[in-house]
């Protein structure tokens, strides 16, 4: 058995809740991902940034989880952002058109700067 593992850490940077994702995002990651989103968006945090710098793998179930997360975020009026996607996963975000619903940035700094401009 090779159970996929995903680790998450949640940080708060001003008006942005940051979720650092590492490992593999598959169906096995559902409860951890949803808990991380709840923690990152608590206290009416308007922006949640997913940092994929330590991501190894996302499968189709993981893409489905991101869609579910996006539905939840829209319901809570939280803007979802993503950064540090590899070229491969950026391509998958484009193919699935997730990139039209989740703002994609090359780095965390760029994402945070974009949020600052929104708040200015």
């Amino acid at each position, binding site marked *: *058995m*090779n159970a996929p593992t995903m680790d998450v850490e949640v940080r708060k940077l001003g008006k942005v809740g940051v979720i650092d994702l590492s490992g593999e995002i598959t*169906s096995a990651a559902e409860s951890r991902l949803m808990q991380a989103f709840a923690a990152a968006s608590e206290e009416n945090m308007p922006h949640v940034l997913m940092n994929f710098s330590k991501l190894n793998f996302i*499968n*189709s179930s993981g893409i489905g989880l991101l869609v*579910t997360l996006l539905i939840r975020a829209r319901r809570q009026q939280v803007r979802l952002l993503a950064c540090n996607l590899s070229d*491969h996963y950026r391509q998958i975000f484009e193919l699935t058109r997730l990139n039209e*619903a989740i703002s994609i940035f090359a780095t965390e700094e760029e994402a945070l700067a974009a949020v600052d401009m929104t708040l200015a």
Partner: protein
Amino acid sequence: MVTGRSLDPQWKPSCDLEIPSQPGNELAAVRAITQSLQPYQINERKLEQMKTAIAEATMNAMEHGNHYQVADPVRLQLQVGSGQVIIRVMDHGDINSIPLPDFPDIDAKLAGKQSARGWGMFLIRHMVDEMREYAEGGYHITELIWYCDLV
């Protein structure tokens, strides 16, 4: 996707393995195949596409073909040569065992008109250069094909 018999009568796999049909084991399949591909120095982009397609095809085989029966393993074969990488993912389902969902549409999913899931075949189709599906030797076979410069 092409449905029909393999076009290669000289099939001689360089890697032939079986993995138990158990959730998560698709990563073992990915690791085994990519290890066998190491000597060929395939470019990173293509290799990442292969990893995604192998994982998705193996998950389909475990779930829809073998119904997650651990004792009914998924068989994977690799053949490299003549500018092609061919991977066969073999299960015991019938040729119609993998459901073809509606074309996944993010707008429909966000509106609740489609399930959030259902991206597997869509991803495979976009990751491969060619794909065939056929029955042979008691197996349902999904054949994934890439054309690439091989060292």
